[in-house]
Structure formats: structure tokens, C-alpha cells
């Protein structure tokens, strides 16, 4: 069996409101999959269904080809969107407790906790009550809580929200390690720049349906209208009159333009060279935000 977490035709309604419609996508082992969508698009509901916190009305979730059971899910790591640990328990104690709830022996939980607190930079604060920690450190504790049982699959709902830049780097590092070690990592985020930097694969959800899913490169090429940037010595305004060119942006010597389908970019470059020196000529790949805006509409 391949190490794939697969959602297949998942539906879910709350009362009359259908919040998930035929949601299907794969989260592949060893890859970081970004899960993007607006508020209320269905990200959290999808993740809760994966974890069994909510039941699906239809469809199913499988891991390595088999439907999920509680037994299997207990080997998943989950960081819910609404964060929380016990405020009046020490960090170490509650991470150990959560490890035990996920099936670790107390000895194994203790060892894993010490290692993780070290890794996320909380070793010194382990015996402090959670409520005495800064918000950023509480987030680090939350990450440790999600990872203590060395999960096979990681599901993280907005893991970077509320993190200071240093903590983001720590968390990214930890998640990468897990992905490299072979775990599928699914994380949602509304910070598209972070997702852009991190994810190997991307799933875009809007209004309860999956609008796009695939590797970052695939999506880029699929949603790219051929767009180029040209920088010349003097005014680049003449590009506007070149056949097949529709100008997107013009700023003196710099022009950004789209080419009509089937138009080759080389004639544009030649035309530019005939007019004088060309400082830059390159294809422009769309940012994730642009792709998102396009598919989520």
C-alpha cells in the first residue's frame, strides 16, 4: 500500500447548510501539503473529519488504502485551529499525558517529551505552568503536544497563526523533519506567502468544494497564462503594439505582458533587441495568491 491519506467524496452538512461537497484529495507521504481556502471554506471541518472529531455524512477517508479506525487515528498528530492545553499543568506533564493518551508508555512519553521540548526550545520552561508562558511559547508547547507520539500523519490547522518569525522557523523545521522522515503533512493556512514557501503540494478549497489540487509546479503551470517581464534601456511602451501582446503593467523601461495563446515569446525579444540593449527578459510565474484568487472565485 502506498502511504497516502486519501479523502474520497466527503460530504458534510450542519443542519440545512452543506459545508463540504464531494471533497476528494490526496495527502502524500514525505510531502508537505498546503490546504488553502477562505474563512468558512471548509478547511477546519475537513480536518476534523480526518481526525474523527466529526463524522462525514458521505464519503470516506483512507490511510494506506484502509478506512480510518480510532486505532489508526490515534497514531495521527493533530493541532486544532482553536489552540488549548491545560493552563494549570506544567508543560512537560501535559505533553507526557497527551503522549500516553496516544498510546505511549509513560517511559516512552517522558523520553519523547524531553526530546521535543529541547527541539522546540522549551527545555528550560518544561516545569513551568503553561499559563506562565508567553503566547509564542505556548504555541511551541502546542506543537510538542501534537508531535509527542511521533505521528504517522500530521494534520495541522493554521499551525503558523500567532507565531513570531523565529517560532515559525522552528515549526517549519520540525514539520520538514517529519515530512522527510516519511509522514504526510497536511497544514492549512491563510498566510499564502508561508504556504508558498513551504508546501510541495497544494489543495485549494472554496465554498466546500475542492477547486484545485496537485503539486505546486503543476498548479503553477496549469494556471499560468504565459506572462513575461521585459526590461529595456529606454521606454518600453512600444510592446503594447506588438502582435499577440496584452500589456499588464508598464513602468518606464519595465513592461509586464501576457501573450495570447499560441504566440511565441522570442519575436518579442528580437524586436526589443533591435531597439537597443535588453536588461532582462523572463517568464513570470504567478504567485500562490494569484492562483488562489483565480480558482477560488
Amino acid at each position, binding site marked *: 500500500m502506498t502511504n497516502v491519506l486519501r479523502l474520497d467524496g466527503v460530504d458534510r452538512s450542519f443542519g440545512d447548510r452543506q459545508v463540504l461537497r464531494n471533497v476528494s484529495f490526496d495527502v502524500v507521504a514525505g510531502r508537505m501539503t498546503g490546504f488553502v481556502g477562505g474563512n468558512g471554506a471548509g478547511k477546519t471541518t475537513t480536518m476534523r473529519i480526518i*481526525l474523527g*472529531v466529526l*463524522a462525514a455524512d458521505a464519503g470516506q477517508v483512507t490511510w494506506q488504502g484502509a478506512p480510518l479506525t*480510532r486505532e489508526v487515528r*490515534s497514531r*495521527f498528530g493533530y493541532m*486544532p485551529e482553536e489552540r488549548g492545553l*491545560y493552563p494549570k499543568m506544567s508543560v512537560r506533564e501535559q505533553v507526557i499525558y*497527551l503522549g500516553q*493518551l496516544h498510546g505511549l508508555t509513560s517511559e516512552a512519553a517522558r523520553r519523547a517529551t524531553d526530546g521535543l521540548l529541547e527541539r522546540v526550545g522549551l527545555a528550560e520552561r518544561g516545569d513551568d505552568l503553561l499559563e506562565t508562558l508567553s503566547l509564542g511559547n505556548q504555541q511551541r508547547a502546542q506543537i510538542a503536544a501534537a508531535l509527542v507520539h511521533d505521528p504517522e500523519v500530521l494534520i495541522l490547522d493554521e499551525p503558523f497563526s500567532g507565531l513570531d518569525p523565529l517560532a515559525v522557523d522552528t515549526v517549519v523545521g520540525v514539520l520538514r523533519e517529519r515530512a522527510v522522515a516519511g509522514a504526510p503533512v497536511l497544514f492549512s493556512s491563510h498566510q499564502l506567502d508561508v504556504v508558498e514557501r513551504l508546501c510541495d503540494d497544494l489543495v485549494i478549497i472554496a465554498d466546500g468544494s475542492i477547486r484545485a489540487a496537485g503539486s505546486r509546479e503543476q498548479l503553477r503551470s496549469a494556471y499560468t497564462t504565459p506572462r513575461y517581464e521585459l526590461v529595456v534601456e529606454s521606454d518600453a511602451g512600444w510592446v503594447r503594439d506588438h502582435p499577440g501582446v496584452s500589456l499588464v503593467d508598464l513602468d518606464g523601461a519595465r513592461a509586464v505582458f501576457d501573450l495570447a495563446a499560441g504566440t511565441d515569446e522570442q519575436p518579442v525579444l528580437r524586436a526589443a533587441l533591435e531597439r537597443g540593449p535588453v536588461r532582462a527578459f523572463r517568464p513570470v510565474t504567478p504567485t500562490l495568491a494569484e492562483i488562489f484568487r483565480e480558482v477560488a472565485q
Partner: protein
Amino acid sequence: MNVMQATRLVAAREIRVKLRDRTFLISTVVFLLIAAAATILPPLLSGGPSTVAVTEAAAGPLRAAGLEVLAVPDDAAAEQAVRDGDADAAVVAGPEVLAMNDAPNDVVAALSTEPPVRLLNPDAVDPVVAFLVPFAFAFIFFITSQTFGAQIAQSIIEEKQTRIVEILVAAVPVRALLAGKMIAGTILALGQIALVAVVAVAGMAFGDNTALLSLLGPAIGWFVPFFLLGFVLIASMWAAAGALVSRLEDIGGVSMPVQLAVMLPFFGVIFLNENVTAMRVLSYLPFSSPTAMPLRLFSGDAAGWEMVASLALLLVAAAGFLLAGARVYEGSLLRTNGRTSIRTAWRERETLG
């Protein structure tokens, strides 16, 4: 991880946290002090033998009776000793016993011949004790089911309010969460009562009150199962009440019916305890039977089969409330915004369980 293991882990955490809670520790110490004071102090306060001022010639029988004798030269000096507070009483010519404002029974007894007494019902309980003991039971049940029930509710709300509940629900069955809390609450409640009982028994032994001890035996034996089932009944309601709200501040509104369900039977038993019919009814109603039935037993009013029948009713009620409470708990646990109505919680079975 099966339900049993998860339940044990949850219960162990609840107990560990509670044992470190200062409020809990202080209240336990206060209970223990009260129990010790109530059993040790009365014999001490009632004081030793009276001091009697008397002329040396008449001192013989009083000494023989174990009283403390203050020898005085004459009757006038004896009376003065009482007035000065040097003696509790004086015996003067006549014989006549003098005291300030309270007839000294032990002195009178030492001077008189008692007729033989034949008790027709030697086991009958001293009426004061017969009144106090059942109310001690009722009071213990009342206080413990309120405090520990409320603590179960608080612990449920804490998990909802801090949102850790979602991690917990993803890791272990919801049933295990609830069962762990109920078991921990029961163990803590019983543990606290057992401690109080040990101190009370030690106090009675210290105060030479072993007669009462032998009387209490069977009543305590029956009180334990009634207490256990009654506690489960009340705690289930507290659990459901706690699950319905998402903030500690909101517990007041939902817990009012639970408080009434404990308070009304408690006061019912206290005010109607002279009324045989009312007590018979109360001793079968699940909410009042944990207090009313041991009371009837103690006063020699209930037969063995009545205890069993009432216990069976209580068992059914407790099981029913436990299941209903669990359903409300499951249905409202993940609704972390505002208050959930019982009806919604009852219908909604969100989790896979």
C-alpha cells in the same frame, strides 16, 4: 489504547491535579479538624469529676465515688469555697448539696442509692445520637455530592474553555473522558469521606465512645452503596450541566436544577423526618433515598428488603442518568461557542465516539 486504559489515564490525571489543588487540600483539612473536634472535644469539655468542698469527717463516701475532695474546716467555709469558685459543689450538714446554678449530678449520685434499672430495649439509640448520626450522613452526602459534582462540571468546562477538548476527543473515545472524570470524582469523594471517617472513629475511640461505634457499623455499611449510587446520579447531572456551557462564568444558570435536585431532598428529609409516611416515600425516591433510607435504618424503622428495593431503584435511576448525561456530554462537547440547549445536545451526536 482501549477505553479502559484511556479511562484510567484520564482518571489518574484528574486525581493528580486535584491532589495538588490548594482549595481541595484546605477543605479536606478543615473537614478532618471538624471531625476530630466533634468526636474528641465533647468528652473533654464535659470535664472531669466535680470538686466538692466538704468537712473531712464527711469526705469518705465522696472520695470513694471518685470525686475530687476539697477539705474545709466547717460548712461556712464549704459554702464560701463554692461561692469563690474553688469548688463546684459543697456538701453540708443535712446532708444538703450546695452548688451555684447547676445541680451537680455526680455528687448527688454519690450520696444516694440508685434503684436497680432493667432496660427493656437495651439497643435503642440515645435520642440525641439517633438525631445527629443520620443528619451527619445526610450532610456528608449533601456536601460531597455538591462539591465533587461541581468539580466534575468544572473540569469539563475547563477542557471546553481551553479548547484542549478537541485534541482529547481526537485521541481517546469520548466515553473514556467522561468515565475517567466520574471515576476520579467518586474516588476523591470516597477518599475524603474515608479519611473523615477514620479520624471520627479514632476520635470516638480516644473519647471512649465505643458503644456508639458498634451502633454505627451497619448504618455505615448501608450508607456506602447508597452514597456511591447517589453520587453517580448527581455527578451525571453535573457532567451534563458542565458540557452545556463553554465558560466557567456560565455554570450558574445550568447548574441551578442540579443544585435543587440535591437541596430539596436534603431539606425534605430534615424537615419531614418525624413524618413516617413522608419518610417512607422519600426513602424510595432516588434523589432522597441516599439520605432518607440510612436514616430509617438507623432509627430501626426499615427492614432489610426495603434497603435492597430502594437500592435497586437508585441503581436503575443512576444508570439512566449516567447514560443520559453521557449522551448530552457527547452531543455538546465540541460546541465551544456559547451555551448548548439540552435538546440540541441530545439530538446532535457529532463525534464518531
